[in-house]
């Protein structure tokens, strides 16, 4: 079977999230937030979370501007992290990193990525991996309360 990277990268789900990103707003007040910026591309986003006493992410939003991949990734990330605990979020972070760098095959390896598995084709586009991972590194920085902007470049 020949691999069609185009359909793998710009799938309908990704295009649709780019067009109508979910949870696309500022969250005020919030318990955690962080900024992600890839100056070479210009992808720039801000992630906001509310984490409760049980370390559960009750609300997660983002705002910013960037390419379709970065926007769709952030949108889908907010959907998948809402209601998860911080520890579960860390596991998803690790698995997502492996997925987009080709180290996790969602068809064979065990994972809890759910819909996020759609990003598996991106490792064929090494220059675009940083677009998909920016929001994840940003959310991790927010959880870890790092005070400086994150970059994946």
């Amino acid at each position, binding site marked *: 079977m020949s691999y069609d990277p185009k359909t793998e990268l710009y799938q309908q789900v990704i295009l649709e999230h780019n067009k109508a990103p979910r949870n696309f707003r500022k969250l005020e007040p919030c318990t955690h937030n962080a900024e992600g910026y890839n100056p070479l*591309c*210009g*992808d720039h986003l801000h992630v906001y979370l509310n984490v409760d006493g049980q370390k559960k992410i009750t609300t997660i939003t983002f705002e910013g501007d960037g390419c379709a991949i970065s926007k769709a990734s952030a949108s889908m990330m907010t959907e998948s992290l809402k209601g998860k605990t911080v520890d579960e979020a860390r596991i998803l972070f690790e698995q997502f990193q492996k997925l987009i760098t080709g180290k996790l095959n969602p068809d064979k390896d065990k994972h809890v990525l759910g819909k996020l598995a759609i990003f598996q084709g991106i490792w064929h586009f090494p*220059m675009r991996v940083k677009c998909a991972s920016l929001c994840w590194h940003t959310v991790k920085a927010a959880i870890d309360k790092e005070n400086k902007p994150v970059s994946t470049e």
Partner: protein
Amino acid sequence: MPPKTKSFDVKKIRADFPNLKVKVRGKPLVYLDNAATTLKPQIVIDTIEKYYKEYTSNVHRGVHTLSQKATENYETSREKMRQFLNARKSCEIIFTGGTTDSINLVMQSYGRAFIKKGDEVLITEMEHHSNIVPWQMLCEGKGCVLKVAPMNDKGELIWEEFKKLVNEKTKLVSVVYVSNSLGTINPVKDIIALAHSYNCPVLIDAAQAVSHLAIDVQKLDCDFLAFSSHKLFGPTGVGVLYGKETLLNKMPPYRGGGDMIASVTFEKTIYNVLPYKFEAGTPNVADVIGLGAAIDYVQSIGLEEIGAYKDELLAYGTEQLKKIPDIRLIGTAKNKASVLSFVHPVIHAHDMGTLVDQEGVAIRTGHHCTQPVMKHFGVAATSRASLAMYNTKEEIDILVKAIKKAEEVFK
């Protein structure tokens, strides 16, 4: 439409560039990233290979046959470059690592020696980062002031504003000849004349200009001129700094080492004469010789012919891109060369770059090392197609089709 330049045979030129035969994602390569770097003709590749295969050796010191040949060819490249730029003397040609390296040489040597606290360095809003950051570094260290001449919304220098910024305090003007992200051709002759009326020297960043316009440094009367070999169909890793002999002689060397000395004792070192004073260490022998072959190649076609052909291509490309309703061209200067920079309201530049690559089309996306230009136009990034003498109208048609296909994906 028959080409206006009859002697210009693009088919023949294309046959000289082996990289054009490559397929990308199953499609013939359409290389439209020439402002980043140009492809290399076979003769340049062969010339470099010949050096490595037949007379690898260091220059200027050896007495053996190979070293003599390497030295001769290295110095012949310098003489070719002198002729190419119409410099008075070949000692005014200094080989560097690239445009950035050349500008840094002027900053480190001329800047540190002759620019003082309170003095002003004048650049324009459309400079590449390599003609911004070195001057910021100088200003930070010396307490001089960086002044920036603004451009209008077409991407043209605003002459009235520029004029106001040149005064007795201006100790160096450093401007780009052809903007890499907008294609604007700046009125460098007027800039130089104006700066000279204040006894202020001028550095011209000719990185993009050198493959498009015939440059005569004596006619321009510029004091310094910098560019890279790899944007002139030559190898990477070599650049040129032209400087007026009187200025270069006044300037201290900024890198110490071998080859730049006349004699060394632990008490005192006597520096070598021009141009060696500025070429410390073993130079990039192979690639300087390769650059010589690139100059021969370009001159065998003729820069006037190349420029005329590319102007025709640019006009065609502009016309075709304007037919796509959602495309907004960034950089619409009246006097413009080689560059088609654009944005799309729905498709981010990086998505555009990835999608047209699926059709074999290589364009550049991002800020093109000109973040202030992006800021001026209120965009984070543009897609940029940049033309060279081997490009064709058919290739522009393929780009247009690829853009339309991308629009289909994002519909």
